[in-house]
């Protein structure tokens, strides 16, 4: 690892229960086209948190990216806990509660020179603000 050239792009790993991460990647690529330095991982029945932690470290390591964001589906759940454990060995920030608008935001902004902390705040706000309700009353009549 030490001799490998570091990639300046922000690495992105989505780690979830089951195949949600793969599906989120498919969905975001449907909107934004094929993406590089964008990996996915799923925890399946019979899987354990320590092996998942090792997988996270491996996937992030393989991207050779200096900085990374790990998106997980549910705070406190195994994908999130495994990602938290991996922070001892990898340079990453974890964002939980991943949704499609958050991924659209990071993929739009990651090419721009921006402070990582500011980017994280942007992504979190985007994720929260994207949750809306639509009711029948909002539809204009006629």
């Amino acid at each position, binding site marked *: 690892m030490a001799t490998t050239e570091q990639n300046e792009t922000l690495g992105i790993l989505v780690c979830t229960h089951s195949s949600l991460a793969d599906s989120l990647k498919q969905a975001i690529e449907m909107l934004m086209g094929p993406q590089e330095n964008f990996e996915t991982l799923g925890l399946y*029945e*019979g899987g354990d948190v320590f092996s998942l932690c090792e997988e996270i470290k491996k996937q992030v390591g393989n991207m050779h990216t200096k900085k990374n964001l790990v998106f997980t*589906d*549910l705070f406190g759940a195994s994908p999130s806990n495994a990602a938290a454990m991996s922070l001892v060995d990898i340079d990453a920030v974890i964002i939980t509660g991943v949704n499609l608008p958050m991924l659209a935001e990071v993929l739009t902004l990651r090419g721009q020179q921006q402070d990582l902390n500011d980017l994280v705040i942007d992504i979190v706000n985007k994720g929260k603000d994207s949750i809306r309700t639509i009711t029948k009353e909002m539809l204009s009549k006629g």
Partner: protein
Amino acid sequence: MITLIRCDDRLIHGQCIVRVLADFKIEKIVIIDDITASNPVLKSVFLLAVPPQTKAVILTTDEAKTNLREFIENNEHVLLLMRSPMVALELFKSYPELKQELNIGPISYRPDTRKITTYAYLTSEEMDAVNQLIERRVRVYFNQTIDQKIIEWNEVRDLFK
């Protein structure tokens, strides 16, 4: 009071938070796990994972063997959570007054395990511990969440001799 004694090798995780804590109205989680109790990183990861309205403590097996009574006697609904039936066996031996029931939830695949259900894999040592619990008249059953099928160890143990 101890509401549920459960083996789950992912300890606190999504299913535990979303279902088990609510289904059993758990107010306090007591994790009994030597690895987690003695590793500051793991300890903080699991304590961080606890929902804010729930209390949690992490004990070694030895600490649990001497300190469990306060959790048995208080009025809170307590979840005893451990990775392995071997730890459960030690607790049942130390505290005969525990409700004689052990719930086994998800225990992950390891190379030397046998698949008991889609979510629970046991080593021969773990199966021995379960059989010893049965001999002590502890009911051992496999169940992930209360609306899913229950598998009694007594009904399947002959398949794993």
